[in-house]
């Protein structure tokens, strides 16, 4: 500790350079944490889903609908305990600048199948009772400053017209990966408004035993194979993963950019440390003359690198952790549960240690090996 003053004094020698180097590391690690959190959030989203839920879509593609009459046939499949369905709505609210997802769902069966969406019983009942009611995620309510009982109008894009709803419930996800930026309204109202009764965007099928998922999925798809709308059934996790894997290359890109940023900062900070050490050749020679050993001088230079790297990482990673949590960031609903994980913080901390070693080792070894007489002569 008694050498700390020397370390800090040396860092204060060029305050601007020290600040910029530290800020550079902080920014690099902030970006790294952000990019890696995009990847981990996508992965978490892909893994979200109950093993007891299957999703049945039109085999041609998710944009094609399925007859609502399939519901009864699905319920009759051995191993199926419940069936629900939903439709993508795709409307916009206000100026439409902020996107959020809207789904028409079969109210009772849907909420029963998703216990992760928690809302007070009286609100649940109100949703079941009133055909034009909606439930919204807590975040959505906060963002728009909506109130329970308020009427809101969504402009349909796929299904044109003004759709006015009354907010009767606010759900809170018990699993942070579940989006709390959604609006759910009743499928029967949707069906009534669009004038062609009997279509569902997809079915959610609850099964009794996850071990039978493959067998049940095959039974369902075989059942509809020769019908007008063949189906494709898979686990809910696979369904979610299919969305997430659309980002697959983005994940790779994010990771690559993150590491490239860190590497660029590594070069900058190494250069800054080496410049700093070179400028202090005389001081190092003086310290050696006083009796500072090579080991102590090595430690002093490494300590400087440590202060810069660790301060930068603390600020950068801390800011990422704090900022996204404080702002409840979710990437406009595409990255629900966006939060810098402990794993990312540890990974970032590891990078900071690597930065410290990489930027400090060369100047530290140079300082330790510096022959005093040569150094004094060089300066004189």
């Amino acid at each position, binding site marked *: 500790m008694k050498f700390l003053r020397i370390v800090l004094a040396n860092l204060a020698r060029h305050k601007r350079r020290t600040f910029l180097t530290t800020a550079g590391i902080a920014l690099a690690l902030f970006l790294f944490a952000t990019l890696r959190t995009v990847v981990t959030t996508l992965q978490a989203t892909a893994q979200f889903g109950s093993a007891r839920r299957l999703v049945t879509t039109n085999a041609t593609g998710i944009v094609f609908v399925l007859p609502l009459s399939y519901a009864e046939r699905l319920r009759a499949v051995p191993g199926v305990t419940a069936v629900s369905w939903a439709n993508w709505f795709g409307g916009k609210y206000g100026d439409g600048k902020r996107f959020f997802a809207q789904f028409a769902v079969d109210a009772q069966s849907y909420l029963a199948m998703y216990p992760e969406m928690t809302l007070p019983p009286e609100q649940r009942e109100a949703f079941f009772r009133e055909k034009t009611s909606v439930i919204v995620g807590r975040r959505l309510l906060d963002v728009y400053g909506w109130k329970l009982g308020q009427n809101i109008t969504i402009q349909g894009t796929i299904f044109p017209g003004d759709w006015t709803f009354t907010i009767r419930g606010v759900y809170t996800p018990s699993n942070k990966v579940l989006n709390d930026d959604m609006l759910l309204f009743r499928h029967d109202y949707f069906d009534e408004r669009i004038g062609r009764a009997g279509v569902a965007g997809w079915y959610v099928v609850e099964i009794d035993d996850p071990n039978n998922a493959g067998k049940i999925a095959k039974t369902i798809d075989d059942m509809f194979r020769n019908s007008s709308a063949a189906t494709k059934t898979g686990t809910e996790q696979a369904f979610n993963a299919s969305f997430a894997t659309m980002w697959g290359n983005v994940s790779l890109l994010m990771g690559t950019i993150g590491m490239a940023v860190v590497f660029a900062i590594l070069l900058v900070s190494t250069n800054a440390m080496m410049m700093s050490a070179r400028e202090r050749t005389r*001081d190092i020679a003086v310290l050696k003359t006083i*009796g500072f*050993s*090579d080991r*102590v001088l090595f430690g002093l230079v490494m300590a400087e690198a440590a202060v810069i790297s660790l301060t930068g990482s603390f600020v950068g990673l801390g800011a990422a952790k704090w900022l996204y949590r404080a702002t409840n960031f979710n990437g406009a609903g595409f990255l629900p549960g966006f939060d810098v994980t402990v794993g990312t913080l540890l990974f970032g901390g590891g990078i900071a240690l690597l930065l410290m070693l990489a930027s400090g080792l060369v100047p530290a070894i140079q300082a330790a090996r510096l022959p005093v007489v040569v150094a004094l002569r060089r300066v*004189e």
Partner: protein
Amino acid sequence: MALVEIRDVHKVFQRDSDRVDVFSGLTLDIPEGSFTALMGPSGSGKSTLLNLIAGLDRPSSGEVNVAGSPVSTMRPGQLAAWRARHIGFVFQQLNLLPVLTAYQNVELPLLLTRLSKKERDERIRLALGVVGLEDRMKHYPRQLSGGQEQRTAIARAIVADPTLVLLDEPTGQLDAKSSEDVLNLLNRLNREFNKTIILVTHDAHAATHAGTVLHLEKGALIEGQGAAV
């Protein structure tokens, strides 16, 4: 009794393809408690001799013993610890670390000891008092005059109570008044505190403050002008 014993020292520098023989069998004793001035023209080997005595450089052959320690054969780690204990060194200029105050600069040798913060503080104040800079301890080198800087460097050189104080042209960059102050201070350190001092200088007037004056020329002591063995 000789504090510094130099026996048949050879020192060769290789500069590109040129071989420079600085010393060719130098032998010299410097007694404990003496104040010795080393004089000679540029390139005569004065600073090299000082570096050999301080263990900052090694002889090509021969022995350098200081306070009973074989400086010329000690390992780098041992030498650092030995220097911290036995040597106080003052250069012509740029002695002080610019980022530290006078107080902090003087404290540097004490950081290598086991002294407590309080003990270090007492020693620093005493050393700065000896050189007359009690009121400048919080000043940075850029806030000190050249003479004050050198006196701070001398305070640092003596603060750990070393066996030997080596000074390489400490008055070379000073005006006459500051130079006189520094030389008087060295005299006082020698007489009152019995410090063994070796002073390298070009300045004949500065050398008059020393008890012994040795003249080096082309790496050899000029006969009859010193305490050569």
